[in-house]
């Protein structure tokens, strides 16, 4: 592109073309986080459900330590992705902010889970549902939108289940809301 002045129509055409160029760029790699957290949280939920419901083990909550390395991996992957990206779209920024907001909600709920008599599963599912639904709308990707709705449905079931059964319901919710849409998103990213 050279340094030259334009006719008015050329100006408008150029503006339209450049805005179109920018629109086609959004960061890939969203599926990684859905799959990582999907598998980790689903397995932790199933582990907790099994240990609490079918064994005499006194500390079933210890299975949740697997979320710590997952957090580190997730943060490192995110940092590497943003290092590689040569452009940050408005949507990329918003996408990150949605998950920060959902994450803050989840962490606060976990801190006060005793106050909820450990009926926190439904709350966590609701935060995950909002994040997944909004991600789906931002990426215009229907499986994530449906995943968000599946997580909301799981939250409704959780509100009516015993504390132990909530772990099983959460595992199913995460499978439907994170893992299935996560693999479909991965296929789309690679396609």
């Amino acid at each position, binding site marked *: *592109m*050279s340094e030259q002045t334009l006719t*008015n129509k050329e100006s408008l055409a150029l*503006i339209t073309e450049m*805005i179109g*160029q920018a629109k086609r760029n959004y960061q890939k790699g969203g599926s990684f986080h859905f799959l990582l957290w999907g598998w980790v949280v689903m397995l932790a939920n199933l582990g907790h459900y099994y240990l609490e419901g079918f064994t005499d083990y006194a500390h079933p909550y210890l299975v949740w330590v697997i979320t710590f390395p997952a957090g580190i991996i997730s943060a490192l992957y995110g940092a590497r992705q943003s290092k590689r990206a040569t*452009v*940050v779209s*408005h949507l990329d920024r918003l996408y990150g902010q949605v998950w920060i907001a959902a994450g803050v909600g989840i962490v606060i709920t976990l801190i006060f889970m005793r106050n909820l008599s450990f009926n926190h599963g439904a709350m966590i599912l609701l935060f995950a549902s909002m994040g997944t639904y909004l991600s789906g709308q931002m990426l215009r990707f229907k499986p994530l939108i449906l995943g968000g709705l599946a997580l909301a449905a799981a939250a409704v079931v959780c509100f009516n289940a015993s504390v132990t059964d909530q772990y099983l319901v959460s595992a199913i919710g995460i499978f439907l809301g994170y893992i299935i849409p996560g693999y479909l998103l991965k296929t789309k990213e690679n396609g």
Partner: protein
Amino acid sequence: MDDFKPLDPLLHSQLRLAVMSLLLSVESAEFTFIKEKTRATAGNLSVQLDKLSSAGYIQVEKAFKGKKPVTTCQITKWGVEAFETYVNALKGYIE
């Protein structure tokens, strides 16, 4: 003749207008991305970015990604206003 406002000469040039349109559409973009999308030469793009930066239309930040120097550009509030004024003036000519 309210419709015919003068066009900002800083924006009424091919490469600078391309850069501004691109930066308007994103949060921030690196030099390499702008160069690729505008198909400009590095030298020419540098000069035009300097002009836009001097006018306060864009903010240019130089940093390091590891050992690699990286230039990141972002449109300013003043730049957005200038761009809107330019587009409105342009509409006046075309309508």
